[in-house]
């Protein structure tokens, strides 16, 4: 005891894994005792599981302490490009917890869940009206599943038309990894469209690919605005080209926040698109999920949508399976809890507010671009949409990379932007401020970026190699984690 020196933690408390805090006999719930009875499992009852034994105060303290080791949008600026980390309204959370939504079973008789079906029907209508794509399915569980469902619709449409031989999908090199992964899952063959000097789909090469593969093309998957932060200015020509050979235009809606209420995707030739309700429509990211990835398609493709889909017959709502459905992609009815949150958000903003969302997101990104363009390399000319793309080219000459800039931002209290993506430029930094950040907060970020740039410029950047220093953990050893994977507490010595 005499040698005991307390750790100087202040408010930065540590907490051990619960298994290390386990004490024989502790339990965090009180359950009634069970009288002896004969089991009807046909087995002996399980002996040991190996779970921790802790009580409620321990559990609360453990998770509260853990939570304090996380950055969050509620606590600070989170400009992750193509991730749309916007404010998550608490009204959404309150509504999703109403017993009439949270406490209903997916197999209940439809007469007992008319309100839930009506809500889904309304959400379908919102998404259809915003995009001009009238066939909507809420079934997909997340963006990647929306992509899958969308590509299944395209596949099915070709098959039904006797065009099942179409195996080629054209995807830009700036696309999210989920695009090629999804197309491959569907059995398509991917042809990569290179980007041009403006960060757009190279139109000449696109034409060449279309001419080369012609009627073997199933479609193209294009993110618009793209991940270089640009609106594809040749989009009408691209859509016409793909349609000219009988292919479909799939739009990845990850960046829809830039154009919601400003551009109707149907007007620019989109046939199928997915939404990330957890991006554009403010449902929380929850440290990785749940998301929700509805899709909208042109009316003539609606018969191929995944099931279920909500229809209104008379004054009754019911689940229906589209005539030539591409099948089921998720169990039950999709991420209904996210549907409640997204509709709450849409009703709060209204058509007018959603348009402002896009405009403000675009203003804020361009403002950052204008303020940083003299200090960081801007790979593509012109203004941006709701995110701006910079690279580390200037800083690299002084020995510091995007990685170091990201870690320096952490030290200065900002969550880094998306780094090393898109892959079309070296050392990418993709910055998406969203419409929910005040000008003061954006200015603070700009000042920090300018400070980092100045320090590097003046030869004082070496310190950033060690950053972050003030975080619960310093730089972590990824190589060690991958080389000898320790994936459970049982493996932890």
């Amino acid at each position, binding site marked *: 005891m005499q040698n005991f020196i307390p750790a100087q933690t202040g408010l930065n408390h540590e907490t051990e894994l619960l298994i290390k805090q386990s004490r024989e006999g502790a339990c965090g*719930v009180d359950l009634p005792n069970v009288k002896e009875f004969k089991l009807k499992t046909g087995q002996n009852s399980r002996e040991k599981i190996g779970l921790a034994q802790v009580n409620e105060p321990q559990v609360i303290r453990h998770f509260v302490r*853990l939570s304090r080791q996380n950055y969050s949008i509620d606590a600070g600026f989170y400009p992750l490009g193509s991730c749309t980390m916007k404010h998550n309204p608490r009204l959404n959370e309150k509504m999703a917890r109403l017993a009439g*939504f949270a406490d209903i079973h997916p197999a209940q008789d439809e007469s007992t869940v008319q309100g839930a079906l009506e809500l889904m029907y309304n959400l379908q209508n919102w998404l259809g009206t915003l995009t001009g794509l009238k066939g909507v399915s809420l079934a997909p569980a997340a963006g*990647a599943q929306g992509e899958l469902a969308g590509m299944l619709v395209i596949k099915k449409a070709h098959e039904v038309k006797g065009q099942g031989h179409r195996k080629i999908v054209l995807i830009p090199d700036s696309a999210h990894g989920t695009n090629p992964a999804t197309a491959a899952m569907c059995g398509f063959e991917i042809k990569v469209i290179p980007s041009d000097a403006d960060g757009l789909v190279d139109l000449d090469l696109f034409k060449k690919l279309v001419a080369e593969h012609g009627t073997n093309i199933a479609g193209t998957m294009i993110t618009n605005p793209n991940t270089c932060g640009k609106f594809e200015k040749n989009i009408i020509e691209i859509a016409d080209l793909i349609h000219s050979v009988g292919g479909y235009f799939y739009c990845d809606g990850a960046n829809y926040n830039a154009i919601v209420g400003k551009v109707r995707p149907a007007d620019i030739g989109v046939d199928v698109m997915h939404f990330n309700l957890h991006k554009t429509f403010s449902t*929380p990211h929850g440290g990785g999920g749940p998301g929700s990835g509805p899709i909208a398609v042109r009316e003539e493709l609606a018969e191929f949508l995944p099931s279920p889909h909500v229809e209104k017959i008379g004054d009754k709502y019911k689940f229906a399976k589209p005539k030539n459905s591409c099948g089921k992609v998720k169990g039950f009815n999709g991420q209904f809890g996210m549907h409640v949150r997204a509709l709450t958000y849409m009703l709060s903003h209204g058509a007018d507010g959603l348009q402002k969302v896009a405009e403000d997101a675009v203003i804020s990104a361009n403002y950052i671009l204008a303020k940083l363009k003299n200090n960081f390399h801007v790979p593509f000319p012109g203004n941006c949409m709701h995110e701006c793309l910079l690279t580390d080219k200037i800083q690299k000459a002084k020995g510091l990379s995007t990685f170091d800039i990201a870690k320096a931002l952490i030290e200065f209290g900002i*969550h880094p932007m998306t780094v090393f993506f898109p892959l079309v430029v070296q050392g990418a930094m993709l910055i998406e401020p969203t419409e929910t950040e005040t000008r003061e907060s954006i200015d603070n970020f700009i000042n920090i970026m300018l400070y980092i740039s100045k320090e590097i410029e003046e030869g004082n950047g070496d310190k950033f190699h060690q950053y972050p220093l003030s975080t619960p953990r310093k730089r972590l050893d*990824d190589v060690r984690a991958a080389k000898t994977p320790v994936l459970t507490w049982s493996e*932890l010595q």
Partner: protein
Amino acid sequence: MRYLALTENDRKSMLAEIGVSSVNDLYDAVENQFLLKNPITGLPLHQGEIEVEKILQEFAKKNRPASSGPFFLGAGCYKHHIPSAVDHLIQRSEFLTSYTPYQPEIAQGTLAVIFQFQSIISLLTGMQVSNASMYDGATSLAESCLMALRIKSGKKNIAKYNDVNPDYLDVCKTFLDLNSAKLQDKIDEDCAGVVVQYPDFYGNIPNLAEVRKKCDEVGALMIVVVSEILSLGLLEAPTQADIVVGEASSLGVGLNFGGPLLGFFSCKKEFVRQMPGRICGATIDADGKLGFVLTLNAREQHIRREKATSNICSNQGLCATAFTIHTSLLGEIGYKKLALINHQKACEAYEILSKIKGVKVLNENFFNEFTIEFSKNAHEINQKLLAKNIIGGYCVDNKMILAFSELTSEEDIKLLAKELSTILN
């Protein structure tokens, strides 16, 4: 509008700094005819909390919550009591409003939760490794079939050993079709994997040793799917399996009209590099302190693109957090006890219902769910129960699958028995 952070003055001065006169100038890449200058018509304009809340309340009122009367539905989605601490903790901003933990220095909270989630799933299933979660049991099973096809690359089909949740099978079919793989009943040399639901869709508990033997005879992987994870607090762990997947939403997550739920995915360690989804691993930081990171990323879409093991990106992070908190509260003692209580409730119901004339109980063994059969269509009987404010079981032809839990009261069971007896006799 309350969620917008810029004032009109901010917009003006920021546009001036950018060097344009109007926000529409920033949309110069959009052909003018397609740029909407006014809000889209046919949709309402913005509203305050009071108005929006009212609209949502109206929708909610038209639904009949499970807690508002006797309730016996299960079939892949189970209602249990969720301790108050769970919802309180998952609503903490730091869990609710953080992104996927790609920057580990400021995401140790989420990462430590995932690590404990993986540990708990592995203990429950008897597998060595688990991933950070999948969308739900159905997609988790579909992904496990694809994984079996990857590992046993010479084989082209998947077999099912017993009655698997039809919703899961629908989703599996969508995924298997893409690989030109069939889901068959026959277990033969063509099978990369054999799926066994434990307990099965009708509540029966299969003999897993027998399944293992059949898998070995044809060189197939054994895939166990569990749709009620609480059952693993009473039943033997499916250690014979190669892959154990399923649904974990019964703890911490709740019904949510079928989503969000919580898929889990666990397997033997030798297959870890074929797993879909995110995985968290332990490591050390620059000071040698224990910490966590996302690891084995070379399987995933953001690195491998079209060669990834799956296209999954977002998972069910917050649901996994809720599960981890609920399971931690239960702990070794509570988990087993809750499972036992669930079984006991089902046993009580079994005794009472099997005495009713016109009811035949089909199960010899079960966990918290079993199937009864009538001489007429079960849907019609269910409608009559509904008229008495009882939500009956899941109906398949003349069969009704009934689920029981710690929330089922003795009165609920007696009321169900009384009404069934009236309807049938």
